[in-house]
C-alpha cells in the first residue's frame, strides 16, 4: 500500500471518528463513548492546563499517547489525525490551489516567514497560562473545530434537516460569530494552502517545537536530487523538502517522497542534521513580543474586573464548575459541555465573562434550565473546569446531605411582572416546577378585592434562599416569557465562597437552616 493511501485512510477514519463523537454527544445516544478522545489526546490541552493548575485532569493523561509518537516522528498528528487539519487539507484541495497547475502549487508551498506567527501565538498563550489565563482554546484546532460544530454547524444543519441532531431545534447565542470565524479560516485556504495550520495553529507550533528531537525525519539525497522542486507540489507543511528541511514545519504527509521522480527523498531514522533548519525559526524579539501580548491579554482581561468586583450576574456556570479564577485556568472553550447539555441551557459566553471568558459556558435560562438529575456537562468536560461530580454531590443527598446541594445562583422575584403579585391573576407555575424538596419556592394565600369589586384568592410566591439551587426552571417556565418575573442571578453560587448570599460560616447547610426555622 502506498503511503499516501494509508494516510488518506487514516484521515478519513479520524475525521469520521471526530464527527461521530460530536454527533453522538446527545443523551439519546450517549452511552460511555470516549467523546473527549480528541481533546484528551491533545498534548497542548494537557500541557497548558498543567501550567495553569499544576495538575493533569483525569483523561488528559491520554495526551502522552500522542506526545510519544510526536517525539519520535514529528508532527504526524497534523496530517494523519487532526480533524481540523484534515478539513483544511480537503478544502484546500477542493477550493484552493490543490488542483492548480504544478508551478502555482510549488510556489504556494514554499516556506514563508509569516509561518513563524503560530510560534508567537503559542508563546503568548503559554505566557498568559503562566499567569492563570488559559486561552489556548481560542485557536487550538480541536477546541476550535469542536466549538464550531457545536454552536454553528450542527444547529444550522438541523435547521435544514429538522430533528437530526436535536429533538427540538437548539439555539446558540453568538454561534454565528463562531461560524463566520470558521468560514474565514477555512476560506483562507484559497489564499494560502493550510493557512490555519501553517500560520495560526498553536498545537502545530507546540508539536513543531518538540519536532527538532524527532528521530525519524525526511531526508533528501543531494546526489540524486535534480532540483526540480516537484517535492513542493503537494507539501502540506511548507517545510522546504527541496532544500534544507524544516522539521518543525513538516506534517509528515509523505507527499514529497511519492512526488519525487528521482527517489531522492526518504523517511530515515536519524539522518544527519547538517542540511536541516532544525528549530522553529522565530526571532527572539518576535518571541518577546508574543510573550508581552500574552501578558497584556491576561492583564487587560483581569483588570477589567469581570472575574472579581464587576462580575456579571448572568455568568451562571454549570453545576460542578470550579471557582471563577480556577475556571479560567481550566476551561478550554471546546464547548463540549454545551454540546451534551440536554436542555440547551448552556451557551457560549461572548463578553459577559470578560475578555478571558470568551466562548466559555454560561447558563441562559430563557433557552433552557439546569436539569436537576443531570451532570452531563461535568461528564463531558475534559479539563475539570466542570468537575465530574455525581448526582448525589450535585443534589446534596446521602452522605452529602450535611453540606447541601450545589447551587448555581439564586432566584429573585420581579413583583411588577409577576401575575399574582401585581396583575390580580393566579399563576405560581414557578412553585409547581421547583424541583427541590422541600420546594425553594413557596406561596402565601391572599384574598384581595379586584378592580371590578369581586374578591379573588391568589397564591403569591416567595423564594427561600436557603433552599434555592439556582437551576432556573422557574425562570424558564414563567409565562412572562420576554423577561421572566422570576430570574436567577449568579449570587449564592456555592463554587465561590465570595459569592454566597447567606452567611453560614463557609459551610452550606440548608438542613441546619431548616432546623432553625422549624419549617
Amino acid at each position, binding site marked *: 500500500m502506498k503511503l499516501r493511501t494509508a494516510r488518506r485512510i487514516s484521515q478519513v477514519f479520524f475525521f469520521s471518528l471526530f464527527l461521530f463523537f460530536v454527533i453522538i454527544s446527545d443523551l439519546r445516544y450517549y452511552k460511555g463513548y470516549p467523546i473527549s478522545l480528541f481533546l484528551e489526546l491533545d498534548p497542548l490541552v*494537557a500541557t497548558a492546563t*498543567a501550567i495553569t*493548575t*499544576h*495538575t*493533569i*485532569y*483525569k483523561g488528559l*493523561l491520554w*495526551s*502522552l499517547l500522542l*506526545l*510519544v509518537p510526536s*517525539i*519520535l516522528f514529528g508532527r504526524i498528528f497534523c496530517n494523519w489525525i487532526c480533524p481540523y487539519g484534515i478539513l483544511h487539507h480537503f478544502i484546500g484541495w477542493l477550493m484552493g490551489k490543490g488542483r492548480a497547475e504544478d508551478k502555482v502549487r510549488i510556489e504556494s508551498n514554499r516556506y514563508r516567514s509569516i509561518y513563524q506567527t503560530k510560534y508567537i501565538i503559542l508563546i503568548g498563550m503559554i505566557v498568559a497560562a503562566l499567569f492563570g489565563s488559559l486561552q489556548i482554546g481560542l485557536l487550538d484546532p480541536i477546541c476550535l473545530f469542536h466549538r464550531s460544530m457545536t454552536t454553528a454547524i450542527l444547529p444550522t444543519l438541523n435547521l435544514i434537516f429538522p430533528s437530526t441532531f436535536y429533538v427540538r431545534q437548539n439555539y446558540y447565542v453568538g454561534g454565528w460569530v463562531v461560524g463566520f470565524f470558521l468560514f474565514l479560516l477555512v476560506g483562507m485556504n484559497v489564499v494560502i494552502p493550510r493557512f490555519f495550520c501553517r500560520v495560526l495553529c498553536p498545537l502545530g507550533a507546540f508539536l513543531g517545537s*518538540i519536532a527538532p*528531537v*524527532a*528521530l525519524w525525519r525526511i*531526508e533528501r*539525497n543531494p*546526489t540524486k536530487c535534480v532540483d526540480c522542486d516537484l517535492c513542493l507540489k503537494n507539501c502540506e507543511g511548507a517545510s522546504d523538502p527541496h532544500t534544507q528541511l524544516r522539521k518543525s514545519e513538516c506534517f509528515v504527509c509523505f507527499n514529497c517522497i511519492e512526488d519525487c521522480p528521482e527517489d531522492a527523498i526518504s523517511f*530515515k*531514522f*536519524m*539522518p*544527519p542534521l*547538517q542540511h536541516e533548519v532544525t528549530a522553529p525559526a522565530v526571532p527572539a524579539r518576535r518571541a518577546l513580543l508574543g510573550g508581552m501580548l500574552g501578558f497584556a491579554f491576561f492583564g487587560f482581561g483581569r483588570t477589567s474586573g469581570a472575574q472579581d468586583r464587576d462580575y456579571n450576574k448572568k455568568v451562571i456556570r454549570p453545576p*460542578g*464548575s*470550579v*471557582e471563577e479564577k*480556577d475556571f479560567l485556568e481550566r476551561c478550554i472553550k471546546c464547548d463540549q459541555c454545551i454540546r451534551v447539555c440536554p436542555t440547551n441551557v448552556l451557551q457560549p459566553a461572548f463578553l459577559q465573562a470578560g475578555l478571558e471568558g470568551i466562548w466559555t459556558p454560561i447558563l441562559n435560562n430563557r433557552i433552557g434550565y439546569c436539569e436537576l438529575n443531570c451532570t452531563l456537562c*461535568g461528564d463531558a468536560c475534559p479539563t*475539570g473546569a466542570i*468537575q*465530574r*461530580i455525581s448526582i448525589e*454531590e450535585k443534589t446534596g443527598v446521602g452522605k*452529602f446531605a450535611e*453540606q447541601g446541594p*450545589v447551587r448555581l445562583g439564586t432566584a429573585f422575584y420581579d413583583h411588577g411582572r409577576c401575575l399574582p403579585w401585581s396583575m390580580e391573576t393566579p399563576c405560581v407555575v414557578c412553585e409547581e416546577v421547583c424541583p427541590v424538596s422541600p420546594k425553594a419556592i413557596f406561596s402565601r394565600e391572599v384574598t384581595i378585592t379586584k378592580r371590578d369589586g369581586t374578591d379573588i384568592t391568589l397564591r403569591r410566591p416567595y423564594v427561600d434562599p436557603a433552599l434555592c439551587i439556582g437551576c432556573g426552571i422557574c425562570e424558564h417556565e414563567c409565562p412572562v416569557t420576554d423577561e421572566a418575573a422570576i430570574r436567577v442571578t449568579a449570587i449564592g*453560587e*456555592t*463554587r*465561590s*465562597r*465570595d459569592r*454566597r*448570599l*447567606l*452567611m*453560614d*460560616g*463557609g*459551610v*452550606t447547610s440548608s438542613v441546619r437552616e431548616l432546623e432553625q426555622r422549624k419549617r
Partner: protein
Amino acid sequence: MNTTPGSNEDENQPQESRIGRREFLIRAGAAGALITGSLVAGRKLWQPNHYLPGFEDQKGLQLPDFRFGADKLLPSMAIAHGPDHEKTVSAAIGALGGMSRFIKKDDVVMIKPNVAFDRPPALAATTHPDALRAVAKLVFAAGASKIIISDNPINSPTGCFLKSGLRQVADELGLDLLYPETNSFAPLQMDGEILKHWTFFHEPFKKATKVIGLAPCKDHNLCHASMTTKNWYGLLGGRRNQFHQHIHSIVSDFPMMMKPTLVILDGMNVLMKNGPTGGRLSDVKPMGTVVAGTDMVAVDSYGYSHLLERDIAELTYIHKAHDRGLGNKNWKEANYKEVQV
C-alpha cells in the same frame, strides 16, 4: 563506526550523511529524555479524581493568646473620669497599675483603633487621635520597640486614616500604619457559633507580641452598640456584609477569636444615636470617661449601661458571650477601680 540502519543502501552516499556514535547517543538520549520526562511529569501531575468545588475542607491559622498572666491583686478594670483626653486615658491605665504591667521592653504592640468611616474626629465615629496619641505614648514609655496600627475599614482605608486624624498621629509618633492590602489577609480558624473560618487581616499579627484594642463608644443600628468587642470586626476581610444575618452570634465570637492584652473604651465623646456612622455633632454627647480593662465583655457592659445609658438586657451579644464563658457581663464583680482626674 556508522550506526545508520540499512547502511547497504547508503553505500553511494557521501560520508556526511552518516552520523557518528556520539551524535547518535545525543539524539537518542534527547528523544528518550523527553519521552521519559513527559511520562514522569504526567504521572506526577495526574489528578485522577474530581473534587466538589466550594466544599473543600478549609483550615485557617490560629491567633496566639495575647493576654498576660493575671495579677489578682491589681484591678482588672479601671474607669477614669476627667475633662482632658490624654490625662483621662493615663489615669485609667494608671489605675490598672500602669502600662508597664502590660507592655514589656521590646514588645511589638498592635493597637487596633476603630477607623471604619471616613469621618473627622469630632463626629465620634472613629477612634479619637488624642486617645491614640495618649495610648501610644504610654506604650512607648513602657519600652515597646514598635507600635503597629491597623484596621480594615468599611470606607476607603486611605481616607479613613487621613480624615480620622490617626495618620497624623502615626506620622508624629512614628507608628507603623499598615493598610489592609491585598496580600495582608489569610484564612483564620474561628470555630465560632456560626463563623467557622474567615479571611483575616493577618499582616499586623505576624510580628505583634501584644495587642491593645482602642475603641470609641458608639451606637449601632443593628447590634445596638459598637464598643471594644465589636471593634475586632475590623480585622476581618471578605464579604463581611453577610455577618449582619447573624450579627449577635458573630460579635459574641470575637472574645474567643481575639484574646487581647488590654482593651480601652474611649467614652470621652460618645456617639449616642445614628450609629455607627453618626454625622451630626448633635449625635455626640460628651461623657468624659475612659474605661480600660482585660475583659472586653465587662468593659462593654459598663459602656452600654453607663456611657450609652441603655438597658444592658437588650445587648444580645454581651449575654451570648457571657453565657459562653468568654467574659463577665457583671462588671461590678470584677476587681475594678474608678478614678477621677
